[in-house]
């Protein structure tokens, strides 16, 4: 039931159709795709999607590894730390984005501009001056717990006897990490990064709430552009062509994601 609409999307993408103009439905061939190639805004949207996804995934994986290692070590209050840490992922994304925008980053009443005044950064309008950075920060805040959970599960599947043996054999902490821990958690990191990518590519909630794609087109990614074209411009054909592009990008990522997923299943099965 989710595949049939996609077939229709491909079909519509070959037509020119404005919802507001009755009778405007006509075959347009590859015209919509031609527009995609020449159109400035689709290129911006693809670029924004790539920038957003790469930044968010890289940062959240790196921070996620750090936090997971902290939570896997002998720290005080591990359980509570983990519980509090996953909260950003569970909070409704629209709610989270609003809280960031209106109560933390608001130039007049927000907490962050106030805290930063001693550093000479008084009343900076973060959302408008650094829109993409703001979206990245909010999304990293949301996705780091996700990465942390997956990587932590990987770390906890480590056999403590192996680590003990390495220690007895005189391996340093760094050596143990590089030779034993890293190879073991690598599939988990990959899985987290790929699943995360599939979600982050679709980021829509926080962009809608934080910047509405703006200022200008600075934070318009592919899903948001599609929304604008379909529901603000009512160009069904053009929107469908953008949808097809989104699918092609996703298929490339998903192929890798599925391979990783299956390799983990097979490792599990071999045990």
């Amino acid at each position, binding site marked *: 039931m*989710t595949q049939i609409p*996609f077939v229709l999307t491909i079909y519509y993408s070959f037509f020119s159709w404005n919802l507001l103009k009755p009778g405007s439905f006509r075959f347009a061939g590859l015209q919509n795709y031609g527009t995609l190639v020449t159109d400035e805004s689709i290129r911006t949207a693809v670029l924004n999607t790539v920038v957003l996804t790469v930044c968010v995934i890289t940062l959240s994986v790196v921070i996620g590894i750090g*936090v997971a290692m902290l939570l896997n070590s002998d720290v005080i209050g591990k359980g509570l730390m983990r519980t509090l840490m996953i909260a950003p992922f569970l909070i409704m*994304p*629209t709610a989270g984005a609003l809280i960031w925008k209106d109560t933390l980053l608001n130039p007049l009443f927000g907490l962050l501009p106030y805290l930063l005044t001693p550093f000479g950064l008084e009343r900076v309008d973060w959302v408008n001056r650094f829109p993409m950075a703001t979206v990245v920060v909010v999304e990293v805040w949301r996705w780091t717990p996700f990465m942390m959970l*997956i990587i932590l*599960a990987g770390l906890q599947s480590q056999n403590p006897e192996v680590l003990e043996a390495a220690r007895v054999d005189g391996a340093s902490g760094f050596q143990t990490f590089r030779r034993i821990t890293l190879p073991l958690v690598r599939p988990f990191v990959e899985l987290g990064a790929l*699943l995360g990518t599939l979600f982050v590519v679709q980021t829509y*909630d926080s962009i809608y709430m934080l910047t509405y794609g703006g200022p200008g087109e600075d934070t318009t990614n592919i899903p948001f552009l599609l929304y604008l074209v379909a529901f603000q411009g009512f160009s069904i054909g053009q929107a469908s062509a953008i949808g097809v592009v989104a699918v092609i990008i996703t298929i490339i990522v998903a192929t890798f994601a599925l391979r990783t997923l299956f390799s983990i299943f097979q490792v599990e099965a071999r045990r």
Partner: protein
Amino acid sequence: MRATLTLNRSKVLWSVVGWLVVFVFFFPVLWMWLEGLKSEPQAASSPPTIFFAPTLAEFQEVLSGDFPPFFINSAIASIGSTLLVIVLGLPAAYALAIRPVPNSRDVLFFFISTRFLPFAASLVPLYLLARDLQLLDNIFALVLIYTTINLPLGVWLLRSFLLEIPNDLFEAARVDGAGFFDEVIRVVVPLISPGIAATCLICLIFSWNEFFYAVNFTSSVAATAPIFLVSFISGRGLFYAKLAAAATLASLPVLMAGWIAQKQLIRGLTMGAVK
């Protein structure tokens, strides 16, 4: 003696670092709660109010205002779709795990590929379909859409739990003369109740927080909780405390469910691959 001392010192040091990081990540949530407990002037003050006498006034105002219908719509959409996922997904998972049909690996792939299909790819046709069926701004449309979004995930997840049931158990049940339905009700369902819980949790999270379809398919009658929050976007007025109270209430069910079922969360998010 000296070794234990340094060991403890490093333990304390890493604990402090850890708690600092956790504090940074948890702070926006804490701040949301605090803002919700303030009065409007306190929430919109400069410098921000740190110490204040908490009040539930804004929570009361949100709950007695126009928020409840949105909340109820969210509940209908997420609970309805979750039930449908279990009812439809369990037989499919059973067929794939216990009595593999031919080409079950391909079927699995096909299932999950639908979950990875971007929402963008199906938005336009589904919108036109809903429009023609007069299902726009109808909560039933969201129930159906969320079911199709979560079904592949549910099938994979339930399958991963079914695979863990030892085959001998089925043999034993059959030897004892259990029919197919006995087998399912008496053996399968009790054994995979954690799996059903995990599936429910993950479906609930995704459908409760879903925004893309909700905002494009509903306007007033069927609008869900995230849509209520949209009305605060243009909030140039002094509504920060109310906003925070609404955000807290809207996030509460998923936050609670996620916290209670932490163990199931990780397995659900990775479709059963990571335990």
